[in-house]
């Protein structure tokens, strides 16, 4: 009977908040994006488990699958333009191979022969929805693997960060005095610290794995500006009459802090958690793009590879190497931000439309 009541009330509260959240179009957009990538992250291991994909072909790191294509051997001219090839860029065409290239590898061939070769990177096909990279690995599978990394890193660092800042911010508000002064100066210091150069230095001393990065980012975020925001919210709650009421009754400091102040700071903390996911995902791609992370696969690594192998400078010719990964980083980071904006509408009624 009683549990039913609680269930009913919790359901009603969720329903009400959901109704408010639904009102915010950007919030819903963000949620759709986040759910989409969440789906991708879960789908990949499922595809392997059910043997719809075999790991030898589709594994994002060790998989290999190259399409064979027969190309005509041609000899590219020394002088451009010619009738056939207006510029140097146009020779060889996609279905052609330069004889000089083959000779350089010691392969005998005549102009006009057909030459069977692997296509790496291969453009999108029904077999590889987003094509393969220069090592013959499936891009779509890599994007899925990248979503897992992004979620893992984003959520872990956000939880660590918000956990730290909520505890410290509430404590600073509640105890005040020297603890408050110390924590505020510390957060000033962390705020002043340039995060990326600091991470470069760390990666010089130690191999950074994903969860290392999550802890570092979480701690930095947790000690930084969020503490100040949480503290100011906790200060507002601290002077509410219901806190006074608990003090008059003789409630202990621990009870007041954990039962009264923390639950009322929690929605704001959740909001900051969602926002900080955005920053963590972006930092990860920057670090792996610079090759500073010891990690097998991520969206940053995908862009890093296409950059080191020169594909990034070929314009849109090899777009599937760059755009899916870049778009994924932008969308998921943006998606979390938009969800945060939507939650802001729910938790900050003053922003709400009547």
């Amino acid at each position: 009977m009683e549990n039913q009541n609680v269930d009913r009330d919790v359901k009603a509260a969720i329903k009400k908040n959901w109704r408010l959240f639904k009102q915010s179009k950007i919030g819903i957009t963000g949620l759709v994006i986040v759910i989409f990538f969440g789906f991708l992250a879960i789908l990949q291991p499922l595809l392997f488990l059910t043997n719809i994909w075999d790991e030898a072909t589709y594994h994002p790191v060790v998989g290999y699958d190259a399409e064979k294509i027969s190309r005509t051997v041609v000899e590219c001219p020394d002088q451009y333009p010619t009738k056939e090839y207006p510029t140097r860029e146009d020779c060889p065409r996609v279905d052609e191979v330069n004889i000089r290239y083959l000779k350089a590898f010691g392969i005998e061939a005549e102009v006009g022969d057909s030459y069977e070769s692997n296509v790496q990177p291969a453009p999108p096909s029904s077999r590889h929805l987003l094509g393969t990279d220069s090592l013959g690995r499936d891009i779509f599978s890599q994007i899925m693997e990248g979503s897992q990394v992004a979620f893992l890193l984003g959520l872990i660092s956000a939880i660590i960060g918000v956990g730290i800042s909520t505890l410290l911010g509430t404590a600073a508000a509640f105890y005040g005095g020297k603890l408050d002064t110390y924590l505020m100066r510390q957060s000033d210091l962390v705020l002043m610290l340039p995060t990326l150069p600091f991470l470069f230095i760390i990666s010089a001393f130690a191999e950074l794995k994903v969860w290392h990065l999550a802890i570092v980012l979480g701690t930095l975020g947790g000690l930084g500006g969020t503490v100040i925001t949480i503290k100011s919210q906790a200060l507002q709650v601290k002077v509410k009459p219901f806190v006074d009421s608990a003090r008059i009754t003789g409630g202990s400091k621990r009870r007041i802090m954990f039962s009264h102040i923390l639950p009322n700071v929690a929605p704001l903390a959740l909001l900051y958690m969602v926002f900080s996911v955005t920053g963590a995902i972006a930092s990860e791609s920057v670090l792996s793009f610079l090759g500073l992370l010891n990690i097998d696969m991520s969206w940053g690594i995908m862009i890093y590879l296409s950059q080191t192998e020169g594909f990034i400078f070929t314009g849109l010719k090899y777009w599937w190497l760059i755009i899916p990964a870049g778009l994924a980083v932008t969308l998921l980071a943006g998606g979390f931000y938009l969800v945060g904006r939507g939650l802001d509408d729910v938790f900050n009624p003053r922003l709400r439309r009547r």
Partner: protein
Amino acid sequence: MSNNLIEVRNLVKHFEVSKSVFSRNKKIVKAVDGISFDIKAGETLGLVGQSGCGKTTTARSLCLLDPKTSGSVNFYNPDTQNMESIDNIDEDGMRIFRRNMQMIFQDPYESLNPRWTIKDIIKEPLDIHNIGSFNEREEAVMEILRTVGLTPPENYLNRYPHEISGGQRQRVSIARTLVMKPKFVICDEPTSMLDVSIRISIMDLMLNLAKELDVSYLYITHDLAVARYMCNRIAVMFNGKIVEIAETEELLQNPIHPYTKRLISSIPIPDPKYVRERYEINFDELDKIVKDNPNEQMVDVGNNHFVATHETKEYLIES
């Protein structure tokens, strides 16, 4: 043996306010500047005055929310049957004091934790003081909900404060306050934010509970009409001092201090035929006189009616 419940003597509460960030000079705001009063068992004392006169500061000092600057507060300890000072009591004494002293706040929207259910809110004092078994506590919550008129209690137990109306919230506040059967409750304008038609039912509830549960109130309000309805005695506060204190009807019929007279003449009368006469005073002058006589004593003018002594001196300050 006196039957006083609370004795307040020369209660002083000063706040330090720094004038600017750079100056070391601190300005002292004398929010409460030496007030004395007693509250007898079963009595309701009204504390009336305009905002900023120190009513709420008095209340907060009395229930130890803010430490007082000086003065003494004695309370009746039902265990030892003695008056004890709250300054030098042991932990046990403090627990008894906490259990017997509660406060109802003005704003029903801010005085209940929005993340807690009604049941948890009311049960918290019992949890803090470890009174009764789990089942006894649940039973006590049901009982007190019935007492404050929230029936059937099952309908309210698992709701959150935002799901009920302002009047019902104030009833929950009262329930929480009374669940430990305290002897003394401070009420800080508990009805001023409620609608007219709901206000009276809350006031009546408080009056009935006072009789039923033998509770005394210190009732803080700016509205003399409300104070008249609720209180046996009224103390009028001005600039941190009590300037006049008397039985309710005596004070309203024979006010002596000019501030009391001004206050009474300011209250609108719900009768269009009655033409009210205003009693004008010079507030700057009154301010000065109250400030110039820091060690004011109250004199008895008979009928249990006390007035600050500057009033019995020559300077009357009517203008």
